[in-house]
């Protein structure tokens, strides 16, 4: 009987520590979930004369993937994006973050280009507007141009199957904005 209370305290402590081990401290909750994508207008990576902005994100469910040629994890994620692009489920827009145009274009040429198009954020100002802190980051945007989910770090097949894809399918079923 006298061991009951220490035992309970111990179990509670173990449970809390166990949860703490499972949490990823790099996953910082984004304050943007449920809010419209931050306004921006950027030149496109491939065609500097054309622009791309938040207005272009309205009308259909899309992914915005923040990437850079200097980013090692982006390279790790890249084959998965190529696969997704082949399946043609939704447009994948790239945000080429703090990169050089030549380097970014060369990267896409060498490894393949999964992006519908990439916007070119040379100084990273738009990245800051979007609360980007660790490339790659992926945002799920709904038909109204609202950010519904953010994935920090490379998309894993597990995250795609269990979180992103079900959400995208659900969002695609939602009615279009009138």
């Amino acid at each position, binding site marked *: 009987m006298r061991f009951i209370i220490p035992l309970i305290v111990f179990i509670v402590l173990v449970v809390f520590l166990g949860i703490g081990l499972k949490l990823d401290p790099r996953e910082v909750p984004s304050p943007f979930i449920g809010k419209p994508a931050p306004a921006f207008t950027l030149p496109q990576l491939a065609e500097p004369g054309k622009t791309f902005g938040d207005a272009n994100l309205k009308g259909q469910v899309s992914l915005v993937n923040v990437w850079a040629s200097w980013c090692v994890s982006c390279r790790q994620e890249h084959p998965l994006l190529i696969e997704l692009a082949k399946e043609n489920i939704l447009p994948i827009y790239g945000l080429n973050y*703090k990169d050089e145009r030549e380097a970014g274009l060369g990267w896409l040429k060498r490894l393949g280009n999964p992006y519908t198009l990439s916007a070119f954020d040379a100084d990273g100002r738009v990245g800051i507007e979007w609360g980007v802190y660790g490339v790659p980051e992926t945002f799920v945007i709904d038909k109204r141009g609202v950010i519904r989910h953010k994935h920090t770090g490379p998309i894993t097949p597990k995250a795609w199957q269990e979180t992103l894809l079900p959400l995208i399918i659900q969002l695609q079923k939602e009615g279009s904005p009138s």
Partner: protein
Amino acid sequence: MRRWLLALSLSLALNSQAMEIRTFDDPAKQQAYEHLVKELRCLVCQNQSLADSDADLAQDLRTEVYNIIQSGKSEQDAVKFLVDRYGDFVLYNPPLKPVTSLLWLGPFALLLGGLAFFALLAKKRSQARAAEPALTDEERRRLHELKNKLEG
């Protein structure tokens, strides 16, 4: 020996120079800036402040803070700029909200719980002591005897 000390102190001095040099048109702004970058957390090296971190993003965010302060806006504006984009996570001193209530009130709740536990324990013990029967004359005599034997 002296040379080593010199090298060591030099390298330490270089280490503390993670921040770039900024010029302000008003010493109050400089103070606000220096205070802010120590209060705000870098998202890349999560246990460093913006002032301590040498990460690329920390540098960019310091520039944002600098621009906001230099343009004459308040410290609150700069904090709001970062919280709007990165959440309360950037604050080393997060506000009291429903989400952070456990963080703020948890330690006090634990302290109260602990005190209540000890009060209960103390009460139980004093009750148990009160419930003990008093010594009889015979027992008192034996106790006295034993005491004399031990001390004598």
